[in-house]
């Protein structure tokens, strides 16, 4: 049964927790970045190396849904920044992941 006690994460069809859009949002949470900086930051954060196709696919999806926006171009590169909607979406997703991780760890500790 769906838990109604917590805020329900809006379904923006961005995929699962480990999917590129969420990684891009998490990378942009501490400030604007361009493509290369994002891939390096994501690799540092979780060891995942996003391919160029996956990265720009995620950027296109997120921009289309208004969760990130491009900043003025710098040497052929567009930095991107997370929007208010993107921050709210990321927070909701991370809260859900946090609850899930806590519940899973509690079960493991009870073993």
């Amino acid at each position, binding site marked *: 049964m769906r838990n109604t006690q917590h805020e329900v994460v809006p379904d923006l069809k961005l995929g699962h927790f480990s999917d590129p859009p969420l990684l891009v949002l998490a990378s942009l949470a501490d400030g604007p970045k*361009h*493509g*290369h900086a994002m891939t390096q930051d994501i690799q540092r954060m979780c060891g995942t190396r996003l*391919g*160029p*196709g*996956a*990265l*720009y*696919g995620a*950027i*296109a999806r997120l921009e*289309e849904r208004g969760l990130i926006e491009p900043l003025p*171009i710098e*040497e*052929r*590169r*567009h930095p991107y920044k997370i929007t208010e909607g993107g921050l709210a979406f990321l927070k909701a997703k991370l809260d859900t992941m946090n609850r899930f991780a806590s519940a899973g760890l509690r079960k493991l500790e009870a073993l």
Partner: protein
Amino acid sequence: MNRHLVDALTQLYPASWRRRYAAEFSAFLEESTCGIRDVADILWSALREHLLSKGGREMNRSQHASGSLAFSFLAALAAGINLVMTVDDSPLIDAMRSHMGMSVAWNLLAGAAVLSGIGVLSIVFSLYRSMHFYARRAGRRDIIALLSVPFIGAGALLLWVACGLAYTGGRWAASPWAILGGGAPSSWPSLHARWICGIISVVLSITVAIASVISVHLAIRRTDFELANGTALRKRRVLAELAKPLVVLCTVVMFLSVLTWGLALQRSVPSLFRQHVGLLDGTAATSWVISLSLLGLASAICIRTNLNLKNAH
């Protein structure tokens, strides 16, 4: 990354995507050291962008269901052809005659396949007519070109098989089910040639199937079904709506029949189950597993589509 390769890879994306991202994507690639994995990632991503391209229209639930059912029928058709070609001209036919359970399951499978085929044809015919009607009315040659891809693909496949037949004087068709490592007639081409031709046939069939699915999907997305609204088309659409539950039921029956058939064969004549009469000289068991998996996939798509439609109502 090499400039020419960057340009070639960027060109794979849809025009609408390129207008927005090509410059920065090219800059990103030029500064990167990309390997085979990255090239594969870009190919997959470009295909995905074509499927999601906003140049098209959103499908409504009914069109989506029709498309899903037609695609699941394609999987069921592949499963059926694989099983029929495995059984054809093999000792499995005699075994089926002498075992009631296998015989009943086979006949049930054949009946469900025919009914499902009729249902899918009515759905696909209705979809094709609507899309063709719109394409002609709106002068959209791109849609007509996309709709012709499955026919061109099927033609290429037939031509390939016909060339093989002509080359061997009608003694052997380039069928991946007629490789037979051991007991092949001496009039057939060499085993090496049979393997190469069989593999080409499989690759060609898979390519045609994938190209057909993508092109029809794109054609559906580019069609404005609101404008494709003739009275005759509306009547055909009602028929297509009625055919959907029939297709779902028949696909599930086909899956259960193939499951029963294989289990009965395994229990009654296990030696035949291990005989090399299947796809690319595989065993009957391998062919059975392939067909069962394809039908399982088709059934899952059908059931999910039907549930989605019910929830929508």
